Each structure stands twice: as C-alpha cells, then as structure tokens.
C-alpha cells in the first residue's frame, strides 16, 4: 500500500491543483483505504493502485460536492472547452519540465487527471474507465481531447516552430 504513495500523490496533485490540498487528500485516501471493509482482489501493485485511485477520486468528489466549489470545470461543462479542430502544430523541441507542468496545471481537472492517469501513471484504459466510472469510449475521447488541448497549450507557451511537409 505504501509503495503506491508517490503515484497517489501525483494523482491527488492533478485533482487538487496544489500541494497542500493534495497532501490532505492523500492522507484522507489512506484513512479510507485502511478503514475499508473490502480490499483489492489481490495485494499486488497492479490491483492496489487502481483500487486506491478509485478511493481517492471518490473522496475528492465528495469533498468537491461538500464545498460546492464552482471554479473547477466539472463533468457536464467539459465539452465547452474542447476544440479538437484547432490548428495543429508539432512539438519540435524538448520542453522543460516546468513548462509541461504549467501547461498540465492550467488544464481543466478532467483533462488533467486523465493525462496523469494514462501518460504518467500508465493505467490501462480499462482501469481508468473503472476509476472514472465511465465507458472506455469516453476515456478514449476525453484522452484524445486532453492531449490535443495540451499540445496546443505547450505550443503556445514555448512558441515552437512547426514542421512543414515539403
């Protein structure tokens, strides 16, 4: 359970958007996991990690509902932010970590969490689908939109040149 803490912190950070709240969410997640009557199917990293991601997301959702926070984009509003037909650009130079982090942080939480789950923590589509409680198709489309948005943000931040086919 402890060996997942770094993964869980990163997911918490993606949900909360800042360090202090992420640490609180991480602690809350461990408390809930320790108190849970039913654990994961097997005590391996592959089973414990998605199980704890689910606990964390539920804990975070409950807290959001409790606080009625309105400044984060929530499930039904996400389409308004998606613009898959925007001009494309290629990322042609190595980005600084701080630039990538700033770009990820500036994304709506729904995109941020799916990028972290898939591209950083390498959870499978099935695992993400289970954690988010949505079909795999939704995971795919949301991930594609998140990546598209991230690419545009990164291009905007670092003014990357575009490669043009001859």
């Amino acid at each position, binding site marked *: *359970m*402890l*060996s*997942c*803490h*770094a*993964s869980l*912190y*990163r997911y918490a*950070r*993606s949900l909360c958007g800042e*360090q202090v709240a*992420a*640490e609180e969410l*991480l*602690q809350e997640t*461990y*408390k809930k996991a*320790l*108190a849970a009557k039913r654990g994961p199917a*097997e005590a*391996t*990293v592959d089973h414990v*990690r998605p199980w704890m991601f689910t606990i964390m997301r539920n804990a975070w959702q409950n807290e959001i509902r409790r606080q009625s926070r309105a400044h984060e984009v929530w499930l039904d509003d996400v389409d308004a932010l998606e613009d898959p037909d925007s001009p*494309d*650009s*290629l*990322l*042609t130079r*190595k*980005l600084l*970590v701080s630039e*990538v*982090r700033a770009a*990820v942080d500036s994304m709506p939480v729904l995109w941020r969490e799916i*990028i*972290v789950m*898939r*591209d*950083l*923590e*390498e959870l*499978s*589509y099935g695992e993400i689908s289970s954690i988010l409680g949505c079909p795999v198709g939704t995971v*795919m489309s949301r*991930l*594609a939109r998140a*990546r*598209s948005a*991230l*690419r545009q943000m*990164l291009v905007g931040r670092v003014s990357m040149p575009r490669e043009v*086919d001859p």
Partner: protein
Amino acid sequence: MIGCTEARRDIALYIDHELEGHDAIEIEAHLILCASCRLAYEDSRAAVDAVRGASPLYEVPGSCYPAIKKLVKSGQRKPFRNRWMLLCAAAALVAGVAIGMWSSPWLTRRNSTPAQYASFAAEAHLLYAKGAFPLDIVSRQPQVVSAWLRGRVPFHLRLPEYPNGGWQQKRYALVGARLVQYLDQDVAYLAYEMDHKPISVLIASSPHLIRPGGETYRSGGLTFHFTEEKGLRMITWTDRGLTYAQVSTIALSGKDSCGVCHGSSEDRPKLENLRPWH
C-alpha cells in the same frame, strides 16, 4: 483499408499500444499514406512524449511519506490495553531505533565493505517487500524507467525490453524504480515482480562492492557471485564499472536460479555458457 475518421479515432489507442495485429497494421498503413492523419498522430505522440519526458511531473514533498507511513502503521497496529504497555512499547521503540541507527549499514556506510553493501541490498529488498520502501516511479515500461533514471544517477542505464520477441511471454515484469543513497552516491533501485514475488536489483557506480564467496559462475566475460544474505538469495556482478546486486527469495542454486527468469529458448545459449568458476 481504414479511412481518416477511423484513423483519427484510433490514434490514441495506437499510441498507447492498445491496438494489436490487423488493427495496428491498418492504422500504420493509413498513416504512411495520409499526411494529415500522420501530422495528427505526430502531434499526439509529441504531447504524450512531452508529458512522459517530464515524469514524474509533480515531485512528492518530503513530508508526505513519513506522514503516510505513520498513518498506515497506526491503522495496522493492534490497540494497546493500557497506558503502561504503551509507555513500555514507546521506550522499546526509542531504544530499538537508537540501536538500529548505531548498527545499521544505512548510516555507517561511509566505511562500507562489500559485506555491508550486501546487507544494505538485502535490507532494501526486505523493506520493499514489506511495502515500506516506496517507489519514485511506477512503470512497466523499461524505456520510461530508463528515461526517469537519466540524470538522476551518475551513470547511463538503459533497461532492456525483455524478452525481445513479442511471442515470448515475460516471466517477470518491471514494477518501477527509486533512488537510494549509498556511499554518498545515488544508487538505482529497480523493482521487479514474478509470480507476485518481488525481485530487487540495486545498481551502484562503484565496482568494488562485490561480495566474494558463495557459488561463482562466469558467462560472457562476467563473473556472477551467488550468496545468501538475511535468508535471501543474492547475485552480484560487475559490468562496465557498475556493481549489480539482485535480491530475491528464489531458493535455487546458482545456474538454476538464472533459469527462472532466463529459461526461454532465446536465453538458453547464455545459460549453457554459464560455467562454474573457482
């Protein structure tokens, strides 16, 4: 042949290796022929690479792990019956920590011997097996872990994708990695898993940490030492200035223990070349 609509839909799946066989070939063929979809693929690929290249993206605060460890320990501990027992346990803990600090190779590592390094590697393995040695990066992909280690350890390490042939089933899997301090240098700790049992590999940049003795075998110009430490099986060897220590509970003698992971037909010649060395 698929069209642009299907190709755009499946680009994410293709990047994430979720397409196999015919489906993967279909999209590859489309990407060769269609410049527009190829550009979309390259853009998505670049976004994914940018995020993975920035891994772990968010550094875990140093205060985080002790707090969680305390929480987990308190959650697992049985309640004490009375205050006296609590006080006695606290006193024993303080004494135990003091003795442990005095004798632990983790803190007396400056004048380390190969035997202490072996003990250090065994302790790391035992801690990891107990869940008390968290990984900095959790990934099944050798290239992702290799990229994460780059710049964090004072040597270049490229973890192999094993086995290379796609038709061969892996007998063990990479779980992740972390850094650990030894002799004032960063040592790479790699965690693997086989049949739900952990296998640890520590890689240090000093070539003088090999523990001689035990069974010794040679293969491919390398000398492997098979010893036991704290009831664990340990294999140590040096290669190009690096010391490797592999720790597990696989209770087989020398050559046979290699066969557990490297028993495929592809690796059989290497094992056949493994010769006892005296």
